[in-house]
């Protein structure tokens, strides 16, 4: 009889174990013009679904408010700036976002510059599906010479004005990160302890996946699979800027959507820049924003930029060359043995 009891208990334990393994709720949706992928671990389906819906509603709200080319609170503001009119009664959230973006622009020595909407529009990236174009150097030069910068923006209580009519704010390098931070707050209110939120590649982790941390794959910019993986502990965030998601090819030259505000041209030669951000209230924003200055900076300036922005973990892929910090190399694992053979791997202190 004891034997049977033992047998029954062990089977019961196995079944319980297998149940808890499968309690992963996953949803894939399309917001911000990209895929939003939410995984919630260890909660019942109903609770996970409710929390996910609240997060998705928040994302839709942000998308409608911050969209760079479809009618939004932001496009209204941009239209006022173009006409030289101040915007009154601007909502407090947008003011906070612009103030924050402004200070990040300054810290990044204007390499992260959300005021260059006219340039981005010129290159044809203000469309869901852009078409390739022939750049005209003199037009680009004119746009660069208008010197758009958030420095021109003045905020007093709820009024926003600009002394440069060529400022066209585009939060494409900020909004998804901000949304990650919002998602974290919402999931916290729902008392979700383990979740992974991925907005078009920008990811933040809450808790972990069972007994292991959440695991992230880093996309190989020139293939359809991941090049490396790493653990993303609770509170950390990761973001990548790449030349392989939004780009077009004209006369054999690849033009990606990340534009150097100093030259007016898309950055060339860098395949991808990944930054890993330690836990912070704004880890999501930082994971979105901080990859841009590193992507745009010339190779000689990278270390100085990383130091001034306090980026401890970064991972840069170029043609046959991979550059990363020592702290990053301790954390990542390459998935294919060929990667180390085919690339010169450089590790900076």
């Amino acid at each position, binding site marked *: 009889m004891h034997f049977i009891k033992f047998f029954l208990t062990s*089977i019961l334990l196995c079944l319980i174990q*297998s149940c808890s393994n499968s309690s992963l709720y996953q949803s894939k949706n*399309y917001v911000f013009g990209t*895929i939003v992928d939410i995984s919630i671990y260890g909660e019942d389906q109903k609770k996970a679904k409710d929390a996910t819906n609240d997060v998705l509603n928040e994302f839709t709200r942000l998308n409608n408010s911050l969209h760079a080319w479809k009618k939004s609170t932001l496009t209204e503001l941009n239209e006022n700036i173009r006409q030289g009119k101040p915007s009154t009664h601007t909502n407090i959230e947008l003011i906070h976002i612009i103030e924050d973006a402004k200070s990040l622009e300054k810290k990044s020595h204007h390499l992260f510059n959300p005021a260059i909407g006219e340039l981005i529009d010129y290159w044809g990236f203000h469309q869901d599906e852009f078409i390739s174009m022939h750049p005209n150097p003199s037009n680009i030069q004119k746009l660069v010479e208008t010197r758009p910068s958030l420095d021109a923006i003045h905020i007093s209580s709820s009024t926003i004005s600009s002394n440069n009519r060529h400022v066209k704010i585009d939060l494409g390098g900020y909004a998804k990160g901000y949304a990650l931070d919002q998602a974290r707050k919402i999931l916290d209110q729902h008392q979700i302890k383990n979740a992974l939120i991925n907005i078009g590649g920008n990811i933040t982790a809450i808790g972990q*996946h069972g007994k292991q941390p959440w695991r992230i*794959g880093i*996309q190989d910019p020139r293939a*359809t699979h*991941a090049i490396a993986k790493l653990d993303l502990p609770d509170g950390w965030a990761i973001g990548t800027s790449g030349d392989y998601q939004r780009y077009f090819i004209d006369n054999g030259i690849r033009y990606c959507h990340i534009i150097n505000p100093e030259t007016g041209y898309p950055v060339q030669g860098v395949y991808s820049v990944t930054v890993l951000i330690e836990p912070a209230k704004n880890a999501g924003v930082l994971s979105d924003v901080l990859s841009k200055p590193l992507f745009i900076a010339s190779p000689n300036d990278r270390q100085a930029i990383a130091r001034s922005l306090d980026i401890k973990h970064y991972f840069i892929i170029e043609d046959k060359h991979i550059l990363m910090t020592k702290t990053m190399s301790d954390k990542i694992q390459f998935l294919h043995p060929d990667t180390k053979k085919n690339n010169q791997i450089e590790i900076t202190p």
Partner: protein
Amino acid sequence: MKLRPKFYIGDVLILLISILFILFTFKSFWHFEAGSIVQVNFQGKVYGNFSLFQNKKINLTGKEGESVIEIREGRARFVTSPCKNQYCVQQGWIHYAGQMLICIPNEVSVEILDKTKAYDSLNY
């Protein structure tokens, strides 16, 4: 002396439990070959999981028009897509677990699944 076979309830239980145990271990430890299932997501929902070891075409009509996905000899790809940029078609075949093709305009994604996926989510 006559030996009558005695069949106690315990024997039945042991048999039953053993069968259950075998079924259970099969279910939990029988892994698919790496990358043998492809998951098609359409408009935010799982459209279906399909074995990669079949020849099949899947036609999905989304906001932009018709996307055609082909499964053949353990691989999957977009054959045609109504989107302008055609990235999804240009990427060609995928077959490793964790590989993914996405057509954002038409809201279709194709992902190779595996129980022992190397990671939970992809940073790109």
